[in-house]
């Protein structure tokens, strides 16, 4: 049985069942009665209710049931990037690469949205080339500009809004914003993402 823990009296944090993709888990959890939201991260599925509640075993069983349908085709997004970030040279030096090799490694990967969080529309992308896995900056920047394309630890990401941040900045995204006030977030958990170099 899945490990279930309370996250206050109106939410539960459930151990993520193995072998099921994030999108499937999100949709299953959101289908439970009275659920108002669900957040899937790499290790957990959190379900949120409007009022204090108890979980039912049948719901948990439905969450972990084997998936009958073949994995639905994941949405794929292409994010155009101008690679002129302030940390490009530093990342190259740390990784023992040339800046153009950093760019090539960053845009050759197919990423997956492992989770959404941190700020509206921010996607934690897994799939980063092992050569680019670096510790975060020792001193976080007090302000990372909106649109910054960054890497931190084993993740890649794009900052939809200006904020403090400790990731390495490789460039800036151009084109459609990652969050807009009419449609919300452009990316969702389970989506695939590619980066494509745009001329400066």
């Amino acid at each position, binding site marked *: 049985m899945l490990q279930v823990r309370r996250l206050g*009296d*109106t939410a539960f944090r459930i151990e993520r069942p193995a072998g099921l993709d994030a999108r499937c888990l999100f949709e299953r959890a959101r289908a439970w009665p009275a659920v108002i939201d669900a957040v899937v991260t790499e290790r957990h599925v959190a379900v949120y209710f409007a009022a204090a509640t108890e979980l039912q075993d049948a719901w948990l069983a439905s969450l972990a049931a084997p998936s009958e349908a073949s994995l639905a085709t994941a949405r794929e997004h292409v994010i155009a990037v101008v690679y002129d970030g302030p940390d490009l040279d530093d990342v190259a030096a740390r990784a023992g690469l040339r800046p153009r090799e950093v760019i090539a490694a960053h845009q050759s990967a197919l990423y997956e949205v492992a*989770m959404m*969080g941190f700020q509206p529309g921010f996607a*934690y992308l897994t799939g980063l080339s092992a050569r680019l896995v670096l510790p975060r900056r020792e001193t976080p920047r007090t302000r990372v500009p909106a649109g910054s394309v960054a890497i931190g630890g084993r993740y890649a990401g794009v900052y939809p809004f200006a904020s403090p941040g400790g990731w390495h900045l490789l460039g800036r995204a151009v084109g459609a914003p990652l969050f807009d006030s009419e449609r919300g977030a452009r990316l969702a958990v389970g989506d695939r993402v590619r980066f494509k170099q745009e001329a400066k």
Partner: protein
Amino acid sequence: MIVIERASLALVVDDGRRGRMHEGVAWSGPLAPELMARANAAAGNARLAAAIELHGAITLRATAPARLATERGDVHALEAGDALTIGRDASLRVRYLAITGGFDVPRVLGSRTTLLAARLGGAGGAALRSGTSLSAGTDLGDDRPPPWEMRADEPLAIVAGPDHEAFHISAITELTSQEYTITPASDRTGTRLSGPPLVRRGPDTQPSAPMVAGAIQVAADGAPIVLGPDHPTTGGYPVVAAIASRDLGRFFARPVGSPVRFCELRS
């Protein structure tokens, strides 16, 4: 219609933007919904009509007749040209100012509430400032808010977990037997408490886990931080407990410097 003349931090809030945490969008509702409901009731509004959350004093002027009310239940009928100042209340962290009909700012992603970090909702995504004008909507109602008391001296109920293993087994006993104080390093994102540090057994949760408003995170220095309505939807600090929903408004209504004690929720 009113225009702001002077304001310290003040922002339009309503019931909040629920159901978008999976997009990284926090709830962003009022710190103390029960106080907002009182102001709305006095104004003749629906319980959760859009009102102004005041983190300090505000002065405004009416440019057309307007009827305003605060969480104390006082009603101010203004004529065009009349000014109104609402000051701080030393016994509250925030106050609420309602207008009959609710403040008519556009709904953004289903809510009028302001999320400053994403410049979403409210008056153009921002806090109110000198010159901001606001008009009244039609969100009337005759909801009577259920009885509610601050109970400023009583312990607040918490639910233990979820990151038990990140702490010594005595963490909940420590949390419920010691007194904490609300520090000035507090905003709508998080409220930092001072007091005896909670000893962590290990490093941060890796990777980040889902969060909830009211979660009591413990930073590396052992200081508890209670996540507020504008919290990041995921986080890496372990969560020792979360404040029960019925006591969350009571916690966030207490001013900086207030003592806080916790007890375990009994259902």
